[in-house]
C-alpha cells in the first residue's frame, strides 16, 4: 500500500518532468523555428499584415517558383506512381525470373543521392554537350538534341528515377500482404483478369499507392538538388532554390528573408495538407482488408514475356543507375570538362588524387558530414526514444500537446527548417551559432526527428506492458526488467533509427547548403559548390568518392544490422 502511494506521488512528478523535457525538445528544435517563419511571413513591423503576404505571393518571381514546384512535383509523382507500381507488380505478382534479386535492385536508387544523379544526367543529356545528345547528333547528322535535360520534363524524369522507390516499397508491401482469397473468390465467381484487377486489386492497393505518391509529392516540392543542378540556369526555380537564391544573394535584407518565409509558409501549408490527406487515406481501414499475415499471392504467368520483361528491368536499372554512376567515375577522371571520355589518353587519376589529398575542403567536408551525421543520429535517436515513450506508453495529462508536436517534424520540409534555424539561432534571440557547425547540427536534429519518432514508436508499440509486469512479478528488480526486457526489445528500433538518420545525413544537401560557412561544408555542399564554380570534373570526382563512401557505409550497416538481428 505504502509503495503504491509513493509510486503515485513521485511518478507524477517524474512523468511531468519527462513530458516537459519532451515538449521542450520538440518546441526548441522544431516548433519554434516554424513559428518564427509564420510570424515573419504574416507580421510586418510587429503588425499582422496578410495583405502584404498576398503581395509577396503574387510577385511574378515568387508565384512562378510556386507554380514550378507544384508542376514538377505533380509530374514526378505521376511518373513515380507509374514506374513504382509497375515494377512492384512485376516483382510480387508475376513469375518474373530472379524476383527477389530484382526487388533489391529496385531499392538501389534510394542510395544514390538525387543531386549526384542530376549531375550525371547533366553530363549525359545537356542539349549541346551531353554525351548521349552528342552521339545522337553525330549519328543522325542533326543539330537537334535528342532530349534536353534542362527542362521541366528533364527535372521530373531525374526525380522519378531516384524517388520511385517510395511508391515501390509501399506497393510491394501491400501486394504481398493482400489476401489472395479475395481475388480467388472473384475468379471463381467468373470475373476475368481485367475485372479482378479493376475491381479488387487496384482498390485494395490504392491507399498504398496514394500514400507513396503523397510522400513523393511532399519530397519533390521541397527538393533542392535536382532543380538546382538542372533548372537554375534555364530560369527554372522552385521553392527551395528560390529561397536559396534569396538568402544567398541578399542575405540579411528584410525583403529576401520575407520572401523566403512566405515561400516556406506555402510549403508548410502544402505539407500539412498532404500529411492530412495521407492520414485520411490510411485511416480508411485498408489494413483490415490487407491482413498482416503473409500469403502466397497468385502469380501471373508471363510466359513468353518473362525474359523480355527481365531484360527490360535490367535495362532500366542499367540506364538509371549503372550508366550515371559510370559517367560520374569517367568524367571524374577527365582532365578537363569537354574532352572525350572514350579516349583513354584523356583519363587519369589526377583529379581523384587532387580531391583526396590536396583539396583541403574534401577532408573538412568528409569530417563534417560524418561527425554531423553521427551526432545528429545519436542525439535524435535518444530524444526519439524518450518522446515516443511518452506518446506510446505514458498516461499523463498534457500528452495531447506532445502528440500534436510529434506530428510536426513529419510535415516540415528541409528548406523550411533551414530558414527557421537561421531566424532562430543567428543572434536575434540571444544565441548566435550562425556560421558554425552547431547550426547545421540543430537543423539536422529537427529534420530527422521524424525518422526517429517513427522507428522508435513502432518498436515501442510492440512491447506490451504485461512483459514488464511479468518480469516484475517474478521478482526482477525494475532496473533488471528494464535492462533485460524493454531495452533489448526496443533496441532494433533504436538502431534502425540511428542508421535511418546517419545515412541520409551523410549526403544531405537541402539544409546544409543554406547554412554552410567556409569551414563547415558538408560533402553535399562541397560537391554542389564545385559544380557551381564551374569545376565540373572536380565535382564529379568528389561525387564519385562520395558514392564509394555511401555504398561502403550502406554495406557496413547491412552487415551490422544483420548481426544485431541474429
Amino acid at each position, binding site marked *: 500500500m505504502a509503495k503504491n502511494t509513493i509510486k503515485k506521488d513521485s511518478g507524477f512528478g517524474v512523468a511531468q518532468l*519527462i513530458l516537459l523535457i519532451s515538449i521542450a525538445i520538440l518546441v526548441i528544435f522544431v516548433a519554434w523555428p516554424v513559428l518564427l517563419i509564420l510570424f515573419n511571413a504574416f507580421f510586418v513591423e510587429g503588425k499582422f499584415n496578410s495583405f502584404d503576404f498576398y503581395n509577396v505571393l503574387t510577385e511574378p518571381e515568387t508565384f*512562378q517558383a510556386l507554380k514550378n514546384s507544384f508542376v514538377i512535383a505533380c509530374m514526378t509523382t505521376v511518373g513515380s506512381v507509374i514506374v513504382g507500381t509497375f515494377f512492384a507488380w512485376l516483382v510480387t505478382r508475376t513469375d518474373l525470373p530472379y524476383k527477389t534479386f530484382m526487388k533489391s535492385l529496385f531499392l538501389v536508387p534510394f542510395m544514390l543521392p538525387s543531386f549526384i544523379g542530376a549531375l550525371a544526367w547533366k553530363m549525359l543529356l545537356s542539349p549541346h554537350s551531353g554525351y548521349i545528345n552528342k552521339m545522337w547528333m553525330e549519328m543522325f547528322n542533326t543539330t537537334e538534341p535528342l532530349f534536353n535535360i534542362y527542362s521541366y520534363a528533364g527535372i521530373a524524369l531525374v526525380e522519378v528515377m531516384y524517388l520511385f522507390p517510395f511508391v515501390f516499397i509501399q506497393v510491394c508491401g501491400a501486394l504481398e500482404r493482400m489476401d489472395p482469397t479475395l481475388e480467388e473468390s472473384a475468379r471463381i465467381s467468373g470475373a476475368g483478369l481485367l475485372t479482378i484487377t479493376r475491381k479488387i486489386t487496384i482498390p485494395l492497393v490504392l491507399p498504398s499507392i496514394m500514400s507513396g505518391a503523397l510522400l513523393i509529392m511532399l519530397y519533390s516540392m521541397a527538393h533542392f538538388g535536382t532543380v538546382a543542378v538542372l533548372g537554375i540556369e534555364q530560369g527554372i526555380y522552385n521553392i527551395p532554390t528560390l529561397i536559396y537564391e534569396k538568402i544567398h544573394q541578399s542575405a540579411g535584407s528584410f525583403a529576401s528573408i520575407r520572401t523566403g518565409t512566405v515561400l516556406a509558409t506555402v510549403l508548410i501549408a502544402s505539407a500539412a495538407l498532404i500529411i492530412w490527406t495521407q492520414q485520411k487515406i490510411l485511416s480508411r481501414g485498408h489494413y483490415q482488408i490487407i491482413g498482416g499475415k503473409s500469403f502466397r499471392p497468385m502469380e501471373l504467368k508471363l510466359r513468353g514475356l518473362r525474359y523480355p520483361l527481365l531484360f527490360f528491368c535490367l535495362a532500366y536499372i542499367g540506364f538509371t543507375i549503372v550508366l550515371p554512376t559510370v559517367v560520374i567515375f569517367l568524367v571524374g577522371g577527365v582532365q578537363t570538362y569537354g574532352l572525350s571520355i572514350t579516349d583513354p589518353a584523356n583519363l587519369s587519376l589526377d583529379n581523384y588524387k587532387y580531391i583526396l589529398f590536396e583539396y583541403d575542403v574534401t577532408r573538412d567536408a568528409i569530417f563534417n558530414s560524418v561527425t554531423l551525421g553521427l551526432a545528429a543520429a*545519436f542525439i535524435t535517436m535518444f530524444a526519439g526514444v524518450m518522446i515516443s515513450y511518452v506518446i506510446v506508453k505514458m498516461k499523463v495529462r498534457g500528452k495531447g500537446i506532445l502528440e500534436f508536436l510529434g506530428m510536426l517534424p513529419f510535415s516540415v520540409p528541409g528548406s523550411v527548417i533551414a530558414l527557421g534555424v537561421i531566424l532562430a539561432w543567428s543572434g536575434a534571440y540571444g544565441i548566435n551559432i550562425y556560421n558554425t557547425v552547431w547550426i547545421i547540427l540543430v537543423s539536422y536534429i529537427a529534420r530527422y526527428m521524424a525518422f526517429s519518432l517513427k522507428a522508435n514508436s513502432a518498436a515501442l508499440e510492440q512491447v506490451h506492458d504485461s512483459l514488464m509486469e511479468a518480469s516484475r512479478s517474478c521478482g526482477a528488480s525494475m532496473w533488471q526488467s528494464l535492462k533485460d526486457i524493454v531495452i533489448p526489445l526496443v533496441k532494433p528500433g533504436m538502431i534502425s533509427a540511428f542508421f535511418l538518420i546517419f545515412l541520409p545525413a551523410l549526403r544531405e544537401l537541402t539544409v546544409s547548403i543554406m547554412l554552410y560557412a567556409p569551414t563547415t561544408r558538408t560533402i553535399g555542399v562541397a560537391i554542389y559548390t564545385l559544380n557551381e*564554380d564551374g569545376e565540373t570534373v572536380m565535382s564529379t570526382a568528389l561525387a564519385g568518392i562520395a558514392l564509394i563512401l555511401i555504398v561502403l557505409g550502406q554495406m557496413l550497416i547491412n552487415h551490422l544490422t544483420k548481426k544485431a538481428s541474429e
Partner: protein
Amino acid sequence: MAKKLSLVVMMLMVAATMLLAGCGGGEKKAEKKADAPKDGKKIVVYTSMKEVLIKGIVDGFKKANPGIEVDYQSAGAGKLMAKIAAERQSGKILADVIWTSEVPDFYKMKKEGILATYKSPVMKEVLNPFDDYDGSFAAARLGTLGIIINTDKIKEAPTQWSDLMKPEFKNGFAVANPALSGTAYMSIALLTKQFGPEYFVDLKSNGARVGKGSGQVIDDTASGELAACLGVDYITNAKIAKGAHLKVCYPPELLMVPSPVAIFKDTQQLDAAQKFVDYLLGAEAQQMVANQGTIPVREDVKIDPKFGLPSPKEALEKGIKVNYHDIIDSKEKIVKDFTELMQVKK
C-alpha cells in the same frame, strides 16, 4: 515503479547526450579561443579568385611567413558580399582580408567605414589604377575578360565585340550572372558604358543568355554546351593548360577589371593581414598571378606571351574607363535590368 525508473533512465540518457553535445561545443569554442592568441596568427581571406590562383598564393605566403595560418573562402563576389552583410548583422565579420573583382563594393565598404586604411610600403613598386587611392584598398591584379570561344564550334576567332551578333554565335553565347559574379557585373557596366545599353539588346536578339557563375560559363563553353562566353582570363587559361579546346579573344576595347584587396577594420590580426597584403603585392605573388594568365600589377613581372595579354601599363591605358563612383549606386538597377532582359524566367 518500473515505468518510473525507465523514465528516469531515459531522461538521464537524453540529458547525458545533450550535455555531451553541449560540453563538446563549449570545449571546442574554448579551444578555438585559446588557439588564436597562442600560436599567434590566423587570418581569413574571402576572395572571388578561384582555387587555382588563391591556393598557390596562400601557400606561398604561409611559407614566407611561418606561424601565420590562412583560411580562405573562394566564392563569387555576390555571395561573399551577402555573407559579409549577414555577418555584420550578427555582429562580427569573420574575414580579415577581402580580395574580389567587384570594385564598387570596395567603394561602398569604404564609405561605410568597415575597411582599415593601410598604405603598404610595397605600393610604390606597383601600378595603381585608382586615382583616389587612400590606403583603403589596392589593386592586386588587373583582370581581363575576353570572348572565350570553343575552338571546335567557332572556327574564326572574333576580333570585335560586334562579332558576337554573327550567326555562329546564335543561341550559343552567355554572360555569367552579374548577381553572382563581380567580374560579370563589372564587364556589363563597362560594355554598357562603351556601347550603350543597346549592345545587350542586340546580344539578346542573337539568343545570348545569362549563365551561372563566372567559372561555370567557361566550363559550359569547354564542354560545347555554349559556343562562346564572356570569360575571365586565368580561369580559361587554367582549363586550356589542361587541354580544353578554348581560346581567349580580346577585341580592342579591353575589359580590364582591377581586383582590389582590402583589410577589414575589425580584424584582430592587423599585422598578419598587412603582411598578407604586402606579400600579395610583392613580386613573388604577382609572378604567380602572371603565371596563371592574368595581368599582375607590377611591371617587373614577366607574363608568358602565350596568353596574349597586354603588359600591365598597356592594360591600364587600353582598358575601358569608367568612373567607379557612378556605378556604385546603380548596381542593383544594372543587375536587375540585365537579368530581366537576358533571363527568361520560366
